[in-house]
């Protein structure tokens, strides 16, 4: 079962061109992150005061605030997973750069043995 979840997040490079495989991996992480949208910001101390738009109660509010700030300039979505206890630890980053308006915020979470995101594992990433 443990293998099942990790295999689900392995790049399918043997069958796909590199870009397509990377996009498929990114899709899985983004999809899992969206499934966590209703998780309370009280889930972890790193999330409690981290939302950029108020009022904010959930991880969905937190991510929406930074997505809304990705206007002019260079914007990037970065997703990655690595093996961890359970199955995998994933990170989703939202990155923005427009002169001194430069930041990267995101979330980290674990996947269970079936490849489902664990709501209690959510942490909020970022600095600045």
């Amino acid at each position: 079962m443990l293998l099942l979840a990790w295999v689900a997040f392995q790049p399918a490079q043997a069958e796909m061109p590199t870009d397509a495989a990377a996009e498929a991996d990114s899709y899985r992480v983004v999809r899992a992150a969206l499934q966590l949208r209703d998780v309370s910001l009280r889930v972890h101390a790193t999330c409690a005061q981290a939302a950029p738009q108020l009022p904010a109660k959930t991880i969905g509010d937190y991510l929406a605030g930074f997505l809304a700030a990705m206007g002019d300039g260079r914007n990037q979505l970065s997703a990655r997973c690595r093996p961890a206890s359970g199955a995998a630890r994933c990170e989703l980053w939202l990155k923005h750069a427009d002169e001194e308006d430069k930041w990267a915020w995101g979330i980290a979470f674990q996947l269970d043995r079936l490849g489902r995101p664990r709501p209690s594992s959510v942490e909020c990433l970022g600095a600045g």
Partner: protein
Amino acid sequence: MPTPACSPTTNLTRLMLDSYLGKNISEICPHGFDDSDLNHCAHFVCHVMNVSAGSVTCSKMSSERVAGRIGACIRVHELFAACPVVGKYDATLDKLSGGVFVFVTADSAVNLKTKSMTNIPKKHVGIALDGNIWHYSNTEDKVVTATPEAFRKHYKSQVNGLYYGDFPAQSIPSSFGCGR
């Protein structure tokens, strides 16, 4: 520029701050938390003052953490909340107090009564002393200086306010290469 001796002191000096000029965060942070995509303004000032306040530090975020060295705070709004006294910045403050943190962000993001700052993306922090501000430029990826007037214009597309924060009681300033 020679690095000042690593003698313990509670007094912040221009010589200490100047020892960081031109340095990249990879040279300042012992824990290897130096991703250039991130904003390192709070990270820099917290290493200078050896402040660990907040929900997360550079050492917690790094897989290359070094034992025996403190983790520095990395978030502007959490540093603001950790300052014992905050208020509107006045250019005479840093001369009187021996240095303060100086924050630039939208006025709407700051609540002085609750000593809180919303985590909006456009916020920045430096250290003010003797009419000058030392801060980490995230476009130049190095420590630079600015006047308070220039610092107030850090973000072009929002109405900025300048705020100060007294250093937390546990703060101990250090020169480059002398962090705790």
